[in-house]
């Protein structure tokens, strides 16, 4: 329909009393790009979005939309469309009236208002629901109307504040794809805030992982997953095994297996290698065999196409993810041998705290 605009957040800082919610966040969204901010609760992702929306004021830093500094502007004059986590449709208005509300605020004529609201409801596939009230619609439908309402004013930026978290799993994944389709169709620059990594990885052009008010890593989903920049990112995005090992040059030796490092160049010595469960394969072994990667299956979790096998190696437990057809023979108590695939891994030094995913 039309191309989006560039959005720049420059060194944004926001403090609540002594709590620093946002600690110098800088982020540029290219025109038409969908960037997902991912992180545990309290990491500052929602604050970033609210600063961009104008719902809160930054202590310092700038918000630049389409080359224009909008830092001091109130929300009502920012040209930003927003979908909230909580159901936010005006209960006393029909779907159609909700979508037309922003147009009315912009003094768009009645005929044009009706036409555009109709188009927007069609865009989200709810043409037949124009005269329904919020309480007559499902949660997913309400969020789609909210999306239509946000887009009706033809905003420069679309902000999605965990719009899917109140929905059940099936509706969630369907609406997620729907949001992406609409976003691509409209071509609007979008900031999507979520604590659900699957959501972020599935639809974003780039994913920004945040912790303690800072951006830990920003990059395409595949890169964030396969080449995490920090131990926090490795642990937060996807599951990670933390296996003690020893760094020697460009490799880390873990229980007799040498794995290449993502970021070589650190000092040699003890470290913790962060190994993805899908980089661990499992093979059956006789009960008397011995070796550093031999252990006993504690549990097998069926996840659908894949299964997750938990193996006790004596001093550590390791998660392995493999196709369900292979995993079915590894019941609890089975003696197995683990093989670590030599993918590049990230290491954590002893003092890096393990974060807990939200």
């Amino acid at each position: 329909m039309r191309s989006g605009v560039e959005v720049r957040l420059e060194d944004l800082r926001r403090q609540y009393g002594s709590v620093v919610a946002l600690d110098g966040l800088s982020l540029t969204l290219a025109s038409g790009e969908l960037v997902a901010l991912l992180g545990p609760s309290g990491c500052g992702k929602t604050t970033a979005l609210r600063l961009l929306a104008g719902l809160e004021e930054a202590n310092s830093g700038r918000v630049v939309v389409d080359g224009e500094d909008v830092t001091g502007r109130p929300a009502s004059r920012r040209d930003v469309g927003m979908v909230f986590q909580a159901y936010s449709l005006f209960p006393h208005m029909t779907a159609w009236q909700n979508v037309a509300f922003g147009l009315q605020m912009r003094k768009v004529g009645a005929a044009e208002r009706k036409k555009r609201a109709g188009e927007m409801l069609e865009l989200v596939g709810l043409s037949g629901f124009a005269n329904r009230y919020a309480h007559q619609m499902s949660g997913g439908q309400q969020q789609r109307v909210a999306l239509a309402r946000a887009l009706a004013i033809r905003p420069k930026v679309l902000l999605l504040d965990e719009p899917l978290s109140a929905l059940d799993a099936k509706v969630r994944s369907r609406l997620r794809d729907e949001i992406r389709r609409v976003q691509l169709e409209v071509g609007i620059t979008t900031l999507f805030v979520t604590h659900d990594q699957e959501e972020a990885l599935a639809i974003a052009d780039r994913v920004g992982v945040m912790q303690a008010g800072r951006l830990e890593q920003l990059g395409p989903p595949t890169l964030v997953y396969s080449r995490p920049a920090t131990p926090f990112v490795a642990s937060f995005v996807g599951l990670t095994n933390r296996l003690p090992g020893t760094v020697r040059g460009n490799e880390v030796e873990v229980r007799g297996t040498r794995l290449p490092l993502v970021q070589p160049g650190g000092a040699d010595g003890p470290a913790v290698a962060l190994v993805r469960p899908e980089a661990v394969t499992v093979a059956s072994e006789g009960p008397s065999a011995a070796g550093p990667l031999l252990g006993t299956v504690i549990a097998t979790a069926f996840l659908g196409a894949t299964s997750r096998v938990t193996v006790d190696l004596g001093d550590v437990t390791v998660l392995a993810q493999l196709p369900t057809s292979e995993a079915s023979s590894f019941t609890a108590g089975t003696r197995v041998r683990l093989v670590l695939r030599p993918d590049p891994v990230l290491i954590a030094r002893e003092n890096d705290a393990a974060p807990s995913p939200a």
Partner: protein
Amino acid sequence: MAAVAAPRRGMSVVRARRLKLKVFRWTVFILLGAFFLVPIGAMFEFSTRGVGEAAPRTLAAFVTIGQYPDLVGAIVNSLELAALTSIAMLLLLVPTMIWVKLRLSSISRTVEFICLLPLTIPAIVLVAGLGPIYLWMALNISDSILTLAFAYLILVLPYTYRALYAGLAAIDVKTLSEAARGLGAGWGTVMWRVIAPNMSGALLNAALLSVAVVLGEFTIANLLNYVNLQVEVAQLGRANAAVSIAVAVASLLFVFVLLVLLSFVGRSRRMREAQ
């Protein structure tokens, strides 16, 4: 047979319990109804008595209400005061409460305390404090009876605060106002077009409560030497008891009709939403 009889006996126990509850409910209802209605009925009976022995029932007292200019004036005064107080209360309290809820949640306890405070202060104490202020106002600004609206505004705070608080608690004020502001609405529009329609029941409730309080107010007006409806009714009671009682009954009926209307407004809204 026994297998059939057992559930039937269970049913009859349930039915008996239900019947007991029904009897209890009706007893309470009738007792309370009598408590409220007997005095009003007695007033009505008294105000419709004819003059002299064995005279027929007459509505003369009600008809003559219009013939007492002082009384008509007092009724108009009270109605004006009721309207003024309700409007002032809504204009003061609604934006304040929304603002406190959105931006100043830390002082919400204080606001609640202040709003409930008048409930604990006897009217006579209030007058002791207000007296000098009204004296000054009468000399320097205006001695109109409508200035009583200031005092009444304080008087209605506890009742209206509760009603409005319940209304605000039922909606997600924060999200609704943020959504509206994001769509380009200023604060005025947010309050008027988004928040108010979603708490219209609470607004009506609060307004009605203020009307009821103001129409029934006697102490403050009397002690500050203003003649409102109740003061006039009391004065008239000494000259013509029948008319005075007739006015009292009429004003009670007026508030009653308001209440019934209000409950219908609320019910039709709920029914529309339920469809």
